[in-house]
C-alpha cells in the first residue's frame, strides 16, 4: 500500500513557472470524440498526473502536447513554442513514451534501445543505454529479442527508450501499465528523482492510487478536464473537506452525533457502521483537537477518532459521479424551459 499521506505532505507548496500550457484547447475527431476546452498549466519541475477513465482523452492531450496532433481550437505552448513549430533542439529536450509499447519485435532489447537513442543523436555512448536499462531492470535481458520478452518488460523497455536521451520534459502515457507493484514503486521513485533534478514529468495513468505520487493531478472525463489540484486538494474536492472517523463504544444516538458534528464544525456527518461515524470538516488538523476536548468534556464514550485518508480510487469515483450528476442536472435544466 502506498504511503500517500507522506508523499502529499512532502510535495505541498511546490510550484514553478509553466513549462507547458493549453488554453481552451479542443481536438475533435471525425467521430465527434476528442477533448474539449482544455485549460492546463504544467509547472516546471513537477510531476503532473493525468487521470481519467479509458477514452476520456488522456492520450489525445499527450499527443497535443507532443506535436503528434494539432488542436482544432485553442493554443498549446510547450517550452515557449507551438508544438507544430518545434525546433530540433526543443524536440531533443522532450521524451515521449506512447500508450502502446512501440518496439521492433525482431530486434533485441539492446538494439531497440540503441535505435531510439540514435533518433536523438546518441551514437556510441553505451553508458546512457546501460544506465537506463539498469533503471528498468532489463540489463540482464539486453540480448533477448523483444518478441521473446513479456508485456511488462516491453513497457519497461518503452520507458527506457523515452528516457535514454535524458530529456527535460517527459511525457509518459500510462508508463506503469502491466508492471508489477514493486517495479512500479521503483519507477515512481525514479520519476521523483528526475523531478528533483529539475525535470518535468507529465504522466497519465489508470492506477488512480498513483495520483498520490504526483505534485498536481488533472482529472479528465468525457474529454473535459474536471479539475486540476494537488492530491490533497482532490480529496477536498471529492468529499467537501477532510474526513474524520469516530468509533463510539456503542451505537450513538442521532442527536449525540449531531452535537459532535456541530462542536467540530463538520459540514456533513453520517454513519459508516453501527458504531462508526464519518465527519467531513474543513481542516482535520484543526477539528481533531476540538473533537478531543468535546468528547472529554461531555464524557462521551469514544474508542478512537482519527483523520481518514480515502483511497484515491474512492476520490476518483466520487469526482466522476459528481461530474455525471452535474451533467444530468444540466440536461434537466436545458430541457425544463421547453417542458409543459
Amino acid at each position, binding site marked *: 500500500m502506498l504511503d500517500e499521506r507522506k508523499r502529499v505532505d512532502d510535495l505541498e507548496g511546490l510550484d514553478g513557472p509553466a513549462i507547458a500550457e493549453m488554453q481552451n484547447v479542443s481536438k475533435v475527431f471525425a467521430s465527434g470524440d476528442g477533448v474539449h476546452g482544455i485549460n492546463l498549466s504544467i509547472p516546471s519541475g513537477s510531476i503532473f498526473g493525468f487521470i481519467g477513465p479509458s477514452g476520456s482523452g488522456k492520450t489525445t492531450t499527450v499527443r497535443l502536447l507532443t506535436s503528434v496532433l494539432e488542436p482544432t481550437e485553442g493554443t498549446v505552448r510547450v517550452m515557449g513554442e507551438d508544438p507544430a513549430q518545434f525546433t530540433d533542439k526543443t524536440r531533443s529536450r522532450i521524451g515521449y513514451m*506512447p500508450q502502446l509499447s512501440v518496439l521492433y519485435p525482431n530486434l533485441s532489447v539492446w538494439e531497440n534501445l540503441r535505435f531510439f537513442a540514435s533518433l536523438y543523436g546518441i551514437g556510441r555512448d553505451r553508458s546512457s543505454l546501460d544506465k537506463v536499462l539498469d533503471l528498468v531492470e532489463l540489463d540482464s535481458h539486453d540480448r533477448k529479442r523483444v518478441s521473446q520478452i513479456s508485456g511488462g518488460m516491453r513497457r519497461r523497455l518503452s520507458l527506457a527508450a523515452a528516457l535514454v536521451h535524458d530529456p527535460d520534459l517527459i511525457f509518459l502515457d500510462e508508463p506503469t501499465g502491466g508492471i508489477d507493484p514493486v517495479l512500479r514503486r521503483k519507477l515512481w521513485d525514479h520519476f521523483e528523482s528526475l523531478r528533483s533534478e529539475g525535470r518535468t514529468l507529465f504522466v497519465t495513468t489508470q492506477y488512480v492510487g498513483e495520483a498520490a505520487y504526483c505534485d498536481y493531478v488533472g482529472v479528465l472525463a468525457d474529454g473535459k478536464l474536471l479539475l486540476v489540484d494537488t492530491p490533497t486538494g482532490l480529496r477536498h474536492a471529492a468529499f467537501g473537506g477532510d474526513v474524520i472517523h469516530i468509533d463510539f463504544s456503542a451505537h450513538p444516538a442521532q442527536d449525540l452525533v449531531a452535537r459532535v458534528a456541530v462542536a467540530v464544525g463538520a459540514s456533513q456527518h453520517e454513519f459508516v457502521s453501527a458504531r462508526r461515524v464519518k465527519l467531513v470538516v474543513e481542516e482535520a488538523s484543526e477539528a481533531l483537537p476540538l473533537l478531543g476536548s468535546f468528547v472529554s468534556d461531555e464524557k462521551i464514550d469514544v474508542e478512537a477518532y482519527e483523520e481518514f485518508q480515502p483511497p484515491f480510487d474512492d476520490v476518483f469515483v466520487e469526482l466522476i459521479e459528481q461530474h455525471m450528476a452535474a451533467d444530468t442536472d444540466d440536461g434537466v435544466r436545458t430541457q425544463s424551459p421547453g417542458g409543459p
Partner: protein
Amino acid sequence: MFKVNNYVRAWAFFRKEVADLVRQPKLVVTLVIAPFLILALFGAGYRQTNSPLRTIFVSADEETFHTVIEPRLAELGDALESAGVTDSRESALGLLRSGQVDVVVVVPDDPEATIRNNEQAVFEVLHDQLDPYERATIGLITKAAIDAVNRSILEGLVAEGQVMSDDTLLSEARQTSTALRVAMEEGDQLAARNERNRLTDQLDAWASTEQGGSTGLAADDPGATPAALRDRAEQLDVSSQNSSDLEAVRALESDLIELDDAAAEFRSIEPMVIVSPFEVATDLVGSTELSVTDFYAPGVIALLLQHLAVTFAALSLVSERSLGTIEIFKVAPLRATQMLVGKYFGYAVVAVVVAFALSGLMFWGFGVPFLGSVADYAAVLALLVVASLGVGFVVSSVVSSDTQAVNASMIMLLLSIFFSGFFISIDRLVPEVQAVSWALPITHALDSLRDVLFRGSGIDLRTTLALGGGALALFIAAAVLTHRRLTAD
C-alpha cells in the same frame, strides 16, 4: 554536430532494417531460393516445340486421303500426329469433345471438281481450344499442313510437266531449222525446200501433241507458239537468197533453239525448287544462341529485385504506422530524409545480396551467357533497385494499410510482367500503351540487362538517365510525401 546526427539517425534506420530482414529466414527463403526454384522448374519443364497436334481427318474417300494427303503430312515432322481417317464427322467431333484428339480436319468432298470449277477446295479445321496462343498454333500448323499438300501437288504437276517437256519433236525441229538455214545460205534450193517441208511437218506434229499445244514454253511471245512457228516456217521463200528471207530463217532457228534450251533447263530444275523458289535463312548477329531459360533469366532477376524493393519499401512506412513508431518519429528531432536514406541503404544492401546470390545461381548454376562487364551489370541492377525503392516509398507514403501496400506492389508486378517486355516484346504494344512500359523501371533495366549479358554492350546513356533520373525524382517525391506524413495529424 548536425551532420553527425544526420549520419547517426540514417545509420540507425539502416541497421534496423537490415537486422529486421536478416532475422526473418523464411523471408530470405522466399526471396532467394523460391525464385531460383521457379526458374529452374521453368527451364527444365519448358518445351521449345509444341506437342504434336493429334488430328483426325474426315473424308468420304479414304483412298484419296491415304494416297494424296497422308503421305504429304510427313513433311510437318512432329507438329501433327495423324489419328487416322473416318467418314463420320460426328464420330470425329465426339473424339474431339472427349479430348482424344486436338483437331478434326474435314477433307473437302471431290476437291478435283471444285478446283476445275475455278474454286478453292476448303479443308475445314475444328478444335475446342480457348487459349488464344494455342488457337494461333493450330491455325499455323494446319495452314502449314495445307501448304504442304498444295506444294506437294504442285511438285507432282511440275514433275509431270518436266517429263512431258522431254520433246524429241522440238529437238528435231531445231536441228531441221539449222539444216534449212544452211541450205538457204548455200543457195541449195532443193535441199532448202526439203528441209522446210520436213520442218513444217515436225512443227505440225509438235503442235498437235498435248505438251506442244498447251505448254507454250514461250507463251509470252505470240510468235513462238508451235502453231505460229509452223506458219512462219511455211511462209519462208526457200528459193530466195535475199537478206530478209535469210533473216527470217535465222530468227526461226533462234526461236527453236531458245525453246529447246528452255525446255532442257526446265527439265534440269528440281520440281521443289520451281514450286518453292525462295527459302528463308535466319541468323543471329552480335549475340549468342540462347535457350528459353537463358533469355528469361535476367528478366526473372530484374522482376524479383523490383518486386522485393517495391514491396519492402511499400510496407516500410505502413509498418511503422501500424507498429506506432511513427508517433515517436513525429516527436523526435527526425527528418524524413534521414529516415528515408537509412531505409534506402538498408533495403538496397539486402537487395544487392539477393541479386548477388541469384546472379551466381544463374550464371554458375544454369550457365546463362555473360558477354558484358560485371560493372555494367551491377550498375543496371543497382539503378533498378534504387528506382524501385522510390516507387515503393511513394506508395508507402500514400497508402494507409498493409493490405493496400501489398496490393499496390502486386499491381506493379502485374504491370511489369505484361508491359516490361518480360514475356512479350513491347514492340507489340501500341505507342500509347508503350508509355506505360517505359514508365516502369524494369523495362529500362531489362532492355539494358539483355544487351549487357547477351550482346556484350555497356549500360547505355538512355538507361542511365531514365533509371537514375527516375530514382532521383522518386526519392524527392517520397521525401516530400513522407515529411507530410510525419507532420500531419
